[in-house]
């Protein structure tokens, strides 16, 4: 049975919202929870002691906790924060930059995060030899490419796939939220706190295209593989990542569980997630196409045949 993981919160939510959110997650059927600020070092409503407090609470409620590290490390203070996480001593760490791998390799078992660009067997084997116990597939990788990679996967290494949520597509040193407000990044006034699911960027004909989340750019569409669970299982995927959105995350986790345990059909689950998602869904990457495409999933194909 595939495990369900809650990815790190990619947005800047008020402190109380974050604590309430993890209270819901603690009560949910998620198996694994990734915690921490991975996008912007200026965000400060929660500090490491707060994340560790949440980690302790979730761990006591039976969740496996992993502390995630920042993807774009630019300064000495970013590295200091990284060192504190790497050396926390209690919880596993997700490395989202090679700088984190440098601190963890050979010392502490770690999760090789989705931004490490693991695209082939050789790189995957190397990561395992450095101490990776799990790796997260790059979001743009297709099912067929993963199948190839899984054939020679090192023993004991788990594979995780980003299965639900707005796709984290790019990082910049520029803050696009500050740019929208005509503010310099150094005086951003933390206005991204007003965008619990990011700020939608539309094309000039009004089509939702991307989402601004500080220095991160996401897809406007919600990547959703709930209709593709058979092919994920067939590819030997052990963990599915559900990326938090501001509403319905616990319900989405429950739906994934219900489909995995065959209490709900994939077709119905697709319809229900579509109602809960902040935008239309897509699954193009998994099917080898452009990420924004929505391909026929197994469930729909079955329905069509029937």
């Amino acid at each position: 049975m595939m495990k369900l993981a809650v990815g790190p919160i990619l947005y800047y939510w008020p402190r109380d919202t974050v604590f309430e959110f993890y209270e819901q997650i603690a009560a949910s059927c998620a198996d694994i929870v990734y915690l921490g600020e991975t996008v912007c070092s200026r965000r400060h409503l929660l500090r490491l002691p707060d994340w560790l407090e949440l980690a302790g609470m979730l761990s006591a409620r039976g969740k496996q906790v992993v502390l995630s590290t920042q993807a774009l490390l630019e300064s000495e203070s970013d590295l200091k924060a990284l060192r504190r996480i790497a050396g926390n001593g209690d919880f596993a760490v997700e490395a989202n930059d090679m700088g984190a791998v440098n601190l963890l390799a050979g010392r502490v078992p770690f999760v090789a995060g989705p931004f490490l660009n693991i695209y082939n067997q050789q790189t995957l084997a190397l990561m395992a030899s450095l101490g990776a116990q799990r790796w997260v597939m790059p979001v743009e990788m297709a099912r067929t490419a993963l199948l190839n990679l899984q054939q020679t996967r090192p023993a004991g290494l788990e594979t995780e796939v980003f299965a639900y949520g707005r796709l984290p597509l790019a990082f910049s040193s520029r803050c696009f939220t500050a740019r929208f407000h005509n503010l310099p990044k150094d005086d951003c006034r933390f206005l991204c706190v007003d965008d619990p699911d990011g700020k939608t960027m539309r094309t000039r004909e009004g089509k939702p295209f991307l989402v601004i989340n500080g220095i991160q750019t996401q897809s406007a569409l919600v990547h959703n593989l709930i209709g593709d669970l058979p092919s994920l299982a067939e590819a030997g995927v052990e963990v599915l990542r559900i990326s938090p959105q501001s509403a319905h995350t616990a319900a989405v986790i429950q739906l994934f569980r219900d489909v995995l345990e065959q209490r709900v059909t994939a077709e119905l689950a697709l319809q229900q997630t579509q109602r809960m998602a902040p935008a239309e869904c897509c699954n193009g990457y998994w099917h080898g196409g452009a990420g924004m495409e929505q391909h026929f999933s197994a469930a729909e194909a079955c329905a069509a045949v029937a």
Partner: protein
Amino acid sequence: MQPEYKLELVCPAGSLPALKAAVDNGADCVYMGFRDDTNARNFTGLNFDLTNARSGVEYAHARGAQVLLALNTYPHSQGWERWKRAIDNAADTGMDAIILADLGLMQYAMKTHPQLHLHLSVQGSASNYEAINFYHEHFGVRRAVLPRVLSFAQVEELAKGTKVELELFGFGGLCVMAEGRCALSSYVTGESPNNCGVCSPPKAVRWQQTAQGMESRLNGVLIDRYADNENAGYPTLCKGRFEVEGATYYAMEEPTSLNTLELLPELMRIKVRGLKIEGRQRSPAYVAQVTRVWRAAIDQCKRNPQSFAVSPAWSAELGKLAEGQQQTLGAYNRPWK
């Protein structure tokens, strides 16, 4: 004794004529790619087959210039043999170094061709010294090309934490995103720099004159629309105009080029080893002009860094060549962020 410090001018060669133009105009190094998806400028009609690569190496070496091979995409398992062969060919043709991003390839190169120098590509996204030192300790990487995300103060701070030589982008196209961490292009077209060596690929581009103006689309997505009095630019997707909460503007970046000419004395002060000019997709004439200006500037700065001033003639010449005729210091200048 410490070898004398030298800032090397590293110029793009998308073809043999461009390579010759770079060498003839004063490049210390040229970088090239093979004619396939093993490099991040995988465009039709561009790059080198083995015969041309050999001629290029011969031409450059005869004139004291080095040749670097850009092998900066990430191979999938199915394509592994093609990338491996490219490394073997680089060694075989006598190239001076290969520019890599993928860990697996670095390991192969180090084991199979220990004499080949390894440079970390900008696609490796190493924006801090812990990352750079990782590549050095595990693969003996000698030089790292920094992503265009750091302010100059951050570059200076980073330099103190590593023995690895640093190479910085000095002029040409400006990636707004951390290189190697951007999947915007594959989100829209299925092809990205990491997996196919292209961004906003030409085959996905459509132009259409409409009642509202000239429209540029990428796989059907409207990237920009131009009024009759505006110059229509190539629809690189992060440089289009989009609408955010009622405001239509360049939400990510204007069509603009990076130009760090005025930073030269500072770059030399902190002993940056490579100054990279972007543009393997550009013409030999472009390469010649840009190389000439930068050669003159570096030489002048070396002679007298205290009194270095950007000559108006250089600025005028580079200004004509810049994308959208606009230039920026990018992230090196903190307010850009």
